[in-house]
């Protein structure tokens, strides 16, 4: 099953590799991993999407907690939460028809065209990962040149929060 795990960790050199190392070392898979500093510059927030049964997720969470740099771990899948991912897609847009079609599809998916060049459109789109998958599927009628996905990030709804 797919799980999304959020963690706060000391914003120190090597912290990221401790987490990614843990996953490879113990044979857990990573579907995506995103990390950046929070409003508190001493803390980084990381979101890991992984797959596994309940026992293996329990182990992952315990092993993450065991890392000295990790301050807090939250399994977002346990909570009602919001999940988003951002994606850039660059497509060939030569003929008028194609351009129109790309524009229309982007609108339907609430994407935005953020760059236009001679024969290329670049679209920015945000949503949960399934929505991005869906958008890519629809866009396949056109010639996709490049895709950049940020990986998922998430936040619990309501009063629940992952803070120090």
């Amino acid at each position, binding site marked *: 099953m797919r799980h999304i795990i959020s963690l706060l960790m000391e914003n120190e050199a090597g912290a990221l590799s401790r987490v990614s190392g843990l996953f490879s070392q113990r044979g857990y898979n990573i579907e995506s991993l995103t990390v950046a500093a929070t409003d508190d510059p001493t803390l980084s927030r990381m979101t890991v999407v992984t797959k596994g049964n309940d026992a293996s997720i329990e182990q992952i969470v315990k092993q993450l907690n065991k890392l000295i740099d990790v301050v807090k771990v939250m399994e977002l899948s346990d909570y009602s939460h919001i999940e988003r991912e951002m994606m850039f897609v660059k497509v060939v847009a030569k003929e008028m028809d194609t351009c129109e079609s790309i524009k229309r599809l982007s609108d339907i998916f609430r994407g935005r065209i953020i760059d236009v060049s001679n024969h290329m459109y670049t679209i920015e789109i945000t949503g949960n990962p399934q929505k991005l998958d869906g958008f890519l599927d629809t866009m396949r009628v056109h010639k996709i040149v490049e895709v950049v996905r940020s990986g998922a990030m998430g936040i619990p709804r309501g009063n629940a929060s992952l803070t*120090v």
Partner: protein
Amino acid sequence: MKLSGAEIFIECLKAENVDTIFGYPGGAVLFLYDELYKAENRGEIRHILARHEQGAVHAAEGYAKTSDKPGVCIVTSGPGATNAVTGIADAYMDSVPLVVISGNVPKDLIGKDSFQEIDIVGITRPCVKHNFLVTCIEDIAPVMKKAFHIASTGRPGPVLVDIPKDLTNPAVKKIEFKYPKDLVMRSYQPTIKGNKKQIKSAIKMIGEAKKPVLYAGGGVITSKAADELTALGRLYNFPVTNTLMGLGCYPSNDPQFIGMLGMHGTVEANRAMHHSDLIICVGARFDDRVTGDLKKFSPDAKVIHIDIDPASISKNRHAHNPIVGDVKEVLQSMLAEIKEQNIVPDKSAYDAWWKEIKTWQALDCLAYEQGDEIIKAQYVVDMLCKVTDGDAFVASDVGQHQMFAAQYYRFNKPKRWVNSGGLGTMGFGLPAAMGIQFANHDETVACITGDGSIQMCIQELGTCKQYGLPLNIINLNNGYLGMVRQWQEFFYEERYAMTYNQSLPDFVKLAEAYGHVGRRIEKPSDVEDALREAVEDKKRLHFLDFAVEEQGNVYPMIPAGYGHNEMYLNKQDAIKDAKLKSKLIKND
């Protein structure tokens, strides 16, 4: 007064009450050694020079395991640091508190493939509790404080501190030294006290059990909880089994002790585990060498698991009642709670349970016959136990001799038995024994080893000479890498690939070359005298080279993939094993 980084380093060691440090010098740690030299002359810190960095780390492990202090060692950059990795990994697997300081090339040379540069922080990341690359002189003291704190609290483990050379150079920078007094780390707060509710329900489970087993491991020793464990065991007349790492945490001469469990454990311990309805696991981790095939392991047992490391709980075997906390604290609360609740076990069920266990004990699975001709390895260990009154510190290497030592030396106190359990590091024994002797000056220290293992850190005989360590080296020499040979005999149709130790050195001459006493013993009748003579000599190291049975095997044995009720008790069992004939064991 302003101090250099190297001076600060010494002050940190002093602040942590470090009086002994193991190591090997080199370019990147020259400034540190310069200050160590002065500290040694002032009588503050003694530096023990090993002959190889691996030896230095194992010695620090032996020191840490038999004292109340973390082991400290210092190595240089590059090969010095990589040589230390095996020892660090060993300490990680066996939860040994270590602080390892490695020098690195000056900061501006890092990342340039400089001479003797290696990313040791990266290399050791998977096998340390934590590690640090110090990037400025101001960080040396706080990092050292954290390193000692992390290494020795919670589930202990090795911490590596990598210090670039320029940070220790007095010509580069000096600062005021201040050692942090208190340390609060928001990201590291081990749970010490056990959850009250869990403890209560554990006691309820104990009250309902009919076939309980107390299964205790190295965590009891680490947490200094042998007394509490013994009290709990006696209170309920539990059968008690110890893991390889836990030997000595429950006295082996106690009638409730049913021996070590696991791959080479006793029949009574393994069958008791298999048939039990309640396993009280204290400071152990259901390691694969203990459980065998997890699917077949103790099918009817509920599990109470007490451990300071939450990640050890329900990792291999589901715990019905997990109690996270320091073993000593948890056992104390349990004992207090038991008093309050006054739970009485089911007497008739316990009697029946013990009757069953006694029938397994009657098999006398560790019995062997010592003839007049060939020395049995088991006999040597038996005799060592006899001449030392079962009260020596025993370090072992890894292999058959390790299992014989675990089975036949009867440990009655914690911290007397030191071996490499998790990583299984050949070469561990001799340097570990050195570390033990440094921590326990007047005690008898024996190193039980084999002709394979001893050669992996044989160079440390030089260290023993330099510091006049009167170790007793018991070399159970069968001319083979015995444990591997045993597996080849059973599982690889007796194809002894590379397990015959050709061209063994003359160990007597070798010991003498290093300035020690060497002796070869070939007759059973000479075993006891040789051991006694060695043990009674408090001045010199005796290297006793015992010519033992060449193709002896360790029994009982649970082959990999087998259950606890499927043990080999002897060679006949192995030969008869139809399952074995039909399929080769695939793994481990």
